[in-house]
């Protein structure tokens, strides 16, 4: 797949440009390269093909996910020049590392072999460990980076043990062979059970599911905001794509289904309840990302159920993660604007006075928050609605009922943030939005509303 080669070369080119050229040229080159990558993926849309002897399989599912991830990265790069305006050195490395991480995401969404699962997972993660510590002289950033590294390596080692155990059963890393084996000897096989369990733990860590969520609030808060945006959007998409490919190959045997259902319940509960008490906006977004992971896991859990209305689990995952990423990017850019207006404070109150100073941004922020909460007319509502339909089709009625309850609970904390935007500030504050940031926020809002009215725009 030439797109995978292009994106790796693009990262190296950006590193060289960082040595010799002005930093103003970095983001445009990155964006043009990413558009090229997207065009290369687009040409493969009608001809699904395998690569590296069948280890990678670029079918419609992976191409759609890769296009989504690349598009979100373009939005993040558009935010880059403003974010790195006052940073003089090592800007190129940050763009390049994001691209390398994205390459891992491409592999993770296309693997058809457990070796590639492991490689994609690590290529996605290792640049992120560095990026989380990108603020070199901030203790908070270094600490977030170390925590992410220790917990991430631990989870990947567990996943590797799972891969080895699965290999011991079939004598092959190929997913198709694993699927055949499971069709033959499904239930009650201890080695199979432990192998699957370890692999699922590794992936659940990456998507931030409870009880493997401890790193999420810390790492999201400590990392530079641009990197947090990348983690919450692109990395989440990649991790769920990888998760789905595993589930699609193995199916959902009874023991795995029980584990997954427990994961869903715990994730929904902890994510939403803990979010209620957060005052720091970044921590709030971290817990909100945990709760969204709960809904996405519910969609995965419904794999294999009867799916009416042209819904598929893969399509729902794509729609949900893509719209969630759009809202996340818009909200984090808004957060940076508000943070600058309030001398670096991060609590929810920094949004006060936004409506009076800049009504358009406040309206966009309101739409993005409502989409996060899942209010009708926004894409977030359609996404949650599809997940619940899938869960009903698969017969997970009680879990779905709990999900609806938690979605209602979730509306509260998003509305609390929206309320701050429309509260007048104690002292007049000026919100300065660069033209490019204004454009990205508007694009995200337009995307959310458009997909809310015509959800069929993003399907497999």
């Amino acid at each position, binding site marked *: 797949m030439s797109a995978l080669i292009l994106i790796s070369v693009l990262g190296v080119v950006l590193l060289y440009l960082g040595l010799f050229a002005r930093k103003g040229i970095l983001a445009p080159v990155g964006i043009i390269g990413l558009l090229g990558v997207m065009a290369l993926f687009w040409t493969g849309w009608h001809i699904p093909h395998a690569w590296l002897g069948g280890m990678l399989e670029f079918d419609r599912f992976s191409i759609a996910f890769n296009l989504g991830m690349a598009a979100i990265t373009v939005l993040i790069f558009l935010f880059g020049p403003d974010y790195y305006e006052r940073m003089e050195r090592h800007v190129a490395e940050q763009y390049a590392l994001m691209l390398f991480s994205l390459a891992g995401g491409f592999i993770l969404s296309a693997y058809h072999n457990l*070796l590639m699962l*492991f*490689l994609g997972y*690590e290529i996605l993660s*290792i640049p992120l*460990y*560095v990026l989380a*510590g990108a603020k*070199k*002289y*901030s*203790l*908070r950033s*270094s*600490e*977030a*980076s*170390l*925590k992410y*590294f*220790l917990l991430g*390596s*631990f989870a990947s*080692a*567990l996943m*590797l*043990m799972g*891969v*080895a155990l699965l*290999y*011991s059963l079939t*004598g*092959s*890393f190929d997913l198709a062979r694993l699927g055949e084996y499971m069709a033959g000897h499904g239930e009650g096989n201890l080695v199979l059970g432990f192998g699957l369990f370890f692999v699922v733990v590794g992936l659940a860590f990456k998507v931030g599911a409870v009880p493997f969520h*401890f790193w999420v*609030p*810390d790492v999201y*808060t*400590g990392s530079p905001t641009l990197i947090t945006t990348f983690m919450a959007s692109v990395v989440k998409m990649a991790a769920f794509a990888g998760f789905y490919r595993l589930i699609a190959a193995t199916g959902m045997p009874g023991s795995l289904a029980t584990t997954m259902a427990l994961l869903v319940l715990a994730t929904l509960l902890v994510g939403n309840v803990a979010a209620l008490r957060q005052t720091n906006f970044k921590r709030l977004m971290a817990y909100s990302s945990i709760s969204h992971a709960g809904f996405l896991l519910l969609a995965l859990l419904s794999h294999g159920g009867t799916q009416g209305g042209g819904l598929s689990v893969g399509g729902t995952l794509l729609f949900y993660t893509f719209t969630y990423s759009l809202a996340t990017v818009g909200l984090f850019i808004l957060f940076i604007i508000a943070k600058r207006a309030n001398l670096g404070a991060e609590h929810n109150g920094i949004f006060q006075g936004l409506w009076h100073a800049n009504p358009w941004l406040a309206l966009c922020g309101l739409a993005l928050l409502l989409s996060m909460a899942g209010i009708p007319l926004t894409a977030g509502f359609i996404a949650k609605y599809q997940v619940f339909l899938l869960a009903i089709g698969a017969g997970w009625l009680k879990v779905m009922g709990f999900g609806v309850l938690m979605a209602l609970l979730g509306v509260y904390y998003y509305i609390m943030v929206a309320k701050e935007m429309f509260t007048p500030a104690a002292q007049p504050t000026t919100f300065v939005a660069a033209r490019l940031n204004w454009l990205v926020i508007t694009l995200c809002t337009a995307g959310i509303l458009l997909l809310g009215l015509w959800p069929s725009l993003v399907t497999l």
Partner: protein
Amino acid sequence: MEDVVTAIRVVPLGHYFVLSFLLFGIGVAGALLRRNILIIIMCLELMLNSVNLLLVALSAWYGDAGAQVMVFFIMLVAAAEVTVGLAILVQLKRNAEGVDINQLNRLKW
């Protein structure tokens, strides 16, 4: 090459499983219980290497080179991971004092 495979096959496969689970268990326990970050990184390496041992044994048993290729990739990734991890540790050491994990409580859990 054949000698190596037969030499590996002299020991029953179950023994390799037990040894590698033991090593893996030591790694997990160390990573969870020890407070010194350097020792935690060593324990993570131990976990990866226990998987390597298991894969090499399985590879000889199945007569399949795929697992050996996987071992090379794991060693590569482990090297990359440790490089990044030690760099992060040095960075942290510059910003804070010492390598005791209990000091890292600015970000509450």
